[in-house]
């Protein structure tokens, strides 16, 4: 078979399998694309040419692992809602949190886990990771996180770079991380879509995709884009060039949305209309303007964050979170007023000029502003294993600054607040009835340096057990390598 014929055959096969999909129909967006039963009207667009035909062209195939009704009994339970319950019981049924409270009765038939003397938290959420897109080993062949060929690459999706066999997913799970936002890098003004993943071993990235999680758009301020493109002798080479670049992109996106709206209005009236040509990058940006895609904005300096807020108002979108944001403490009030979360570190600072003013108390000062939303995140395959320690350092710095912050409050920085920052707060991030039973059992207070996870649950199923090698999954990459199984 010639290459050309093979290609045609593959395309045909893909089209057929696409039509025959057994996945449940997506809610609203797919309705217009229902094939045979459509009434007589202007010829419908082929699905691949209509941005709304399949809002998610790479749908999640995530299925929770099998689980059994479980009662975790006797632990100090951080609920992720600001509460610490001593001698708490967490009841888990059908993969969901059923009840949480002190001394609850354990119903018959539940597996009982004795957690007296231990601590329980919600599964940790990392709102900023590059696992899979900058996989280990960090060789050039695995460097897939920055499409540094154009300052605006809204058309790329991080999930198309994610390598599910990155050993870092497993080490992150050992650290209690159950949900991860994987983002493109920050070399571009607009770097592309990020993807929210369930942290389970998987053969495909679709197996990991968090069902019904929103997509996100990665944007970046400051030194990285201007350095990358300035060194190539093209725009942007300055911060003002950065801002011109964002605004031009949103103007294009608004125009694109208007052309589709016009087209659909004409079609609805039965008028003849030429559809705009689909543009993957503008699809994503228009999704932001429609409020369907969250903006996650890498931005260190306070003054730049304030400018990004004004740009968001100029074009009518909302910034879900500023990332890194080491100067957020300088505008904690402004960020809180605008309902913007701050995903930051305690300890990272000083590596470059825009990081120079980073302080350990950043998260605590953000938290202290009325309505402030502080998030501790990793941006790093090592730190993701110890988000609890980074939160402890941020907490200690807040207390040293004279702020009265409880551990129950600070645990939100790595659980419910990141859930909010990445748009999955209705599903996970706290131990409340009806939410996914993502939880961690710790051998010490998670704010202690000595705390290690004993067990990690995803959707009520044991995803990691420190004492049972059967629940210590290793990636394909680790098999047969020196030291296999030591991690």
């Amino acid at each position, binding site marked *: 078979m010639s290459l050309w014929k093979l290609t045609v055959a593959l395309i045909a096969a893909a089209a057929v399998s696409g039509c025959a999909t057994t996945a449940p129909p997506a809610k609203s967006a797919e309705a217009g694309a229902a094939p045979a039963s459509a009434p007589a009207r202007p010829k419908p667009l082929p699905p691949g040419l209509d941005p709304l035909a399949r809002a998610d062209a790479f749908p999640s195939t995530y299925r929770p692992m099998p689980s059994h009704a479980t009662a975790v009994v006797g632990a100090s339970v951080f609920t992720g809602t600001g509460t610490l319950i001593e001698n708490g019981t967490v009841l888990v049924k059908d993969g969901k949190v059923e009840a949480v409270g002190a001394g609850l009765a354990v119903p018959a038939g539940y597996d009982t886990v004795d957690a007296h003397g231990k601590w329980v938290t919600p599964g940790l959420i990392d709102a900023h990771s590059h696992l899979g897109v900058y996989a280990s*080993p960090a060789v050039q062949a695995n460097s897939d996180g920055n499409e540094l060929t154009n300052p605006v690459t809204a058309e790329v999706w991080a999930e198309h770079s994610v390598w599910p066999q990155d050993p870092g997913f497993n080490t992150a799970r050992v650290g209690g991380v159950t949900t991860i936002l994987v983002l493109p890098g920050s070399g571009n003004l607009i770097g592309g879509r990020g993807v929210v993943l369930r942290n389970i071993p998987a053969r495909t990235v679709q197996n990991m995709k968090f069902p019904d999680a929103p997509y996100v758009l990665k944007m970046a301020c400051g030194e990285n884009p201007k350095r990358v493109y300035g060194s190539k002798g093209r725009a942007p080479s300055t911060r003002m060039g950065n801002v011109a670049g964002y605004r031009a992109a949103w103007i294009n996106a608004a125009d694109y949305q208007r052309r589709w709206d016009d087209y659909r209005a004409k079609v609805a009236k039965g008028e003849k209309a030429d559809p705009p040509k689909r543009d993957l990058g503008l699809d994503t940006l228009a999704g932001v303007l429609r409020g369907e895609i969250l903006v996650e904005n890498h931005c260190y300096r306070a003054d730049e964050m304030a400018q990004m807020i004004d740009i968001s108002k100029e074009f009518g979108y909302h910034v879900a979170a500023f990332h890194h944001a080491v100067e957020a403490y300088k505008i904690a009030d402004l960020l809180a007023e605008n309902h913007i979360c701050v995903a930051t570190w305690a300890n990272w600072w000083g*590596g470059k000029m825009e990081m120079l003013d980073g302080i350990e108390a950043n998260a605590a000062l953000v938290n202290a502003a009325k309505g402030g939303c502080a998030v501790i995140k990793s941006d790093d395959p090592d730190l993701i294993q110890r988000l609890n320690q980074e939160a402890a350092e941020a907490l200690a710095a807040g207390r040293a600054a004279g702020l009265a912050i409880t551990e129950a409050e600070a645990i939100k920085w790595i659980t419910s607040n990141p859930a909010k920052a990445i748009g999955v707060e209705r599903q996970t991030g706290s131990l409340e009835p009806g939410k996914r039973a993502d939880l961690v059992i710790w051998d010490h207070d998670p704010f202690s340096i000595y705390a290690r996870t004993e067990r990690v649950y995803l959707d009520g199923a044991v995803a990691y057990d420190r004492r049972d090698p059967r629940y210590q999954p290793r990636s394909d990459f680790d098999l047969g390598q020196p030291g296999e199984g030591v991690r």
Partner: protein
Amino acid sequence: MRKVLFGACALAALAIGVSAQAETVAVTNARILTAGPAGEIASGAVVFKDGKITAVGANVAAPAGARVIDAHGGVVAPGFFATGSLLGAVEVGSLGNDLSVNNPAIGASFDIQYGLNPESGLLPVARLGGLTSAVVLPLPVGGRGGEDYDQEDDDASKYTAGPGGEGSKSHALFAGTGAVIDLSGHETILTKAKVAMVVPFGRAGAGVAGGARGAEIVALKEALADVRAYMKNKAAYERAGYRDLALSRGDLEALVPVVEGRMPIVAVVRRASDIRQVLAFAREEHVKVILEGAEEGWMVAGEIAKAGAPVLLNPLNDRPESYEELAATMDNAGRLAAAGVTVALESTGGSARVRETRYGAGNAVSHGMSYAAALASVTINPARIFGVADRTGSLEPGKDADLVIWTGDPFEPLSQPTAVFIHGEAQPMTSRQIELRDRYRDLGRPLPPGYTHP
């Protein structure tokens, strides 16, 4: 914004004031981690005078006239020692550093002591992490092999191709000599110069030797043979009556203490097989060796212990970041210590994040290292490895009063230092970061933050 009153500890810190030189100071009511032969003292006092410790123990009373600092049951520990740090030789990472040189005439002879900056804003930040000493080591010109970045966010530059393929650069076989400093910020922060010679092995060594590992040991042996020839025939060399040697005269001279076994090399090495090659090289060449990196050290722990080679390692390296560290594990530090290896702990990054040294020690403990071994690995062990244990690294009479008072276990993030002494002198408990914090803590003031009045 809710505020709590300053605790007693903060008041104690304020009360300490400035110079403790020339007066006798007694820190009482403390749990003392001596890191010396006395081990841990459940409750006792440390007395120091004129910058030196005069007494440590459970039954030590404050001498008459001494200024007494009540530790309120907190912990007193030696100031921690930052190993493999970049302190004093870097300010803002992206602006460059004074750690790496690519000059055909200056490799082994590169001496980091002349580039140290006592005014560095990184020193006060490090002190607030309980650090009082550091060894500053050159960075090999081709990077450190498997992974080479200090602290970057997620931009592309951290994933650049490794060194290699540019032909032999003999001078770059040696990265130069490091120094031990104190973190006082005084103009005389240099404690000891020329403490060790950095030599990259493995991938990084292969890069400077022309691209392959097999070339490097050959080139190194040739270079050391040249040094020995130079030592025997200095007169002929000086009148240009001698064969060409691969290194400059300065580099040959700088390597004399190495071939004489007086100065150790710091071998940057990760893979188990490379560690074996380094140990064999050191044995054959009669060179003292310190291993740095050693992510796969645990696989050859017995051989390292038998060779008596100390190891500098980051206890948090547990991923196959490169093909040189496929067997990296958090258990590395504990396993090496258990095998009898002298371990010193490095921190990630080495400069801005060096304050995390104490957390690395805590993680080593939770992954199998004994508390005493972890304490030693951030105090007395690096002091011994770099030849300054007669002055610092433990709380013993006669040593410099380099010590820190903590609210609790110093490895715990929720513990904070309340006082830091270097050579008996109380260090200011502030930094540029603390000033920024206080400037912006209350955003509701009528005047812009730059004005200092209320």
